[in-house]
């Protein structure tokens, strides 16, 4: 445990020194907040761009607060995913490529601790950034549109966080099993993309798929009730995370550190 906390602290300090603690939360705030703000000011934006031609009558129904919040949060499943993958892909592959992993692992360091401490660092960064970003989005939605009950918001935050944790763990997994950060990042994005794509049309059969969690979060915000499959989907997601993490350690241990 002592060794694990040493490794974990190192991750936190590293993320502080390379400013991940600054730019990831800020990006999450900007991503989320831009949605309520731009929806609110859309009429003025159109005006300032020269307005609509004389005589055009287009009714733009003002979106509801839930719709705005959903739009804001769904930024995290696109650009947010990209940010998570880009900021995590080098976490193991980068250290192995540079050779510093070999310097550390000739010391009596457990491979399990080495990987899980890194994962935990990314986990903390993700959940904190997502919390700050989505609270800001919720707040601006409240000011500019309507206040969404905090418990509903919080439940959907958890569901989004859970899906993004899958993305994070997948990236850690590829970073542990592939040799270069770039390839690890690309593969992670490809897998997440394909997974989301497949789940869409097959959603009737894949009700427990982890990538459904964000849909359930959205439904939750719209209907104020937790969708039926949320619990089994969450449990399956947790299982996926644990299995992926375990596989990361297993594969990393099998690999030779020096080539």
């Amino acid at each position: 445990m002592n060794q694990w906390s040493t490794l974990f602290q190192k991750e936190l300090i590293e993320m502080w020194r390379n400013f991940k603690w600054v730019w990831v939360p800020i990006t999450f705030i900007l991503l989320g907040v831009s949605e309520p703000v731009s929806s609110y000011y859309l009429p003025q934006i159109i005006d300032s761009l020269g307005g609509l031609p004389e005589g055009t009558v287009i009714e733009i129904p003002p979106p509801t607060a839930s719709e705005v919040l959903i739009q804001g949060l769904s930024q995290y499943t696109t650009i947010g995913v990209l940010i998570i993958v880009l900021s995590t892909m080098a976490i193991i592959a980068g250290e192995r490529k540079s050779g510093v992993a070999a310097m550390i692992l000739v010391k009596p360091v457990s491979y399990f601790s080495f990987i899980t401490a890194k994962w935990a660092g990314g986990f903390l960064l993700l959940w904190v950034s997502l919390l700050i970003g989505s609270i800001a989005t919720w707040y601006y939605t409240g000011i500019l549109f309507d206040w969404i009950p905090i418990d509903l918001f919080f439940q959907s935050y958890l569901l989004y966080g859970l899906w993004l944790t899958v993305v994070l763990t997948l990236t850690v997994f590829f970073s542990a099993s592939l040799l270069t950060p770039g390839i690890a990042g690309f593969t992670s994005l490809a897998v997440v993309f394909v997974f989301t794509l497949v789940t869409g049309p097959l959603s009737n059969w894949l009700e427990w798929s982890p990538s459904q969690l964000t849909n359930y979060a959205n439904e939750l915000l719209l209907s104020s009730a937790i969708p039926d499959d949320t619990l089994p989907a969450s449990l399956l997601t947790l299982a996926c995370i644990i299995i992926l993490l375990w596989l990361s350690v297993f594969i990393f241990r099998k690999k030779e550190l020096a080539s």
Partner: protein
Amino acid sequence: MSLIQINHLKKSFRGTEVIKGIDFQLDKGKCIALLGPNGAGKTTTLRMLSGLMEPTDGTIIFTDAKKGEDIRELIGYLPQFPVFYEWMSGLEFLSYAGRLAGLGRKEAKDRSLELLKLVGILEAKNRRVAKYSGGMKQRLGIAQALIHRPQLIMLDEPVSALDPIGRREVLDMLEGLKKETTILFSTHILNDAEEICDEILFLHNGKIVESGSMAELRERHQQPKIDLFFTGKSGEYAEIFSNHKLTHSISVEGNRVSVFVTNIVLARQAFLRLIAEQNLPLERFEVSSMTLEDVFMKVVGK
């Protein structure tokens, strides 16, 4: 007293056998050089001993290791090109390594400062590793290998990348470390090995072609030799010695005549007498011992 026992170690990469079954043992408190030309398999051998690589075949047994003990606790390793977290300071990296090796926070820091002093980069302790020079990184690398007071330290080409001054300092440092721990280091520089090592392992094409202490090696490969230096052309004097009954073979190079003899004691007396009788213009008379380079050429050449 043996510290580590290596039996029939083999390593293949995609079917190519790089290490072809080597056996040796390292004795406690000794300084052993792993010598060999580039590509002989020195780095691969060290990586297997440090646990970074899995041997294809064979065993590595630490005599003192208790059952189930992590052998990484017993060894310190410096790779050929040490890398660090560039965003850490030297002191931070050492303390981090120490903590990972099981030292307490205070203990790790004290030991780090002690080692930074030993390797001579104490004044740079708070500088980021990114700003360190190559020589300083090498020193930091040696310090991190020593942090947990391992029983065996393995250094891969510790001085090859250093300038003459840095090389001198690191060699002196190793000389001092010999008292505390067992050292195994690889090098292709013969002088370094000859200077500080008790024992030598010659690795060539993945095999150990020769091993032993310097004295043993000399004895085994000794071809007694007398070097004679004359004023002017030495060639004309070579004849006088080439017909001598104690001469085995002779070679002339510049003003030096090297006479390989069958019996050094008799030859020395006979030659000195001969020189005096014939009043030869001798400048220097040298009973030379075989250098490591001679041994190296001999074992690698065959």
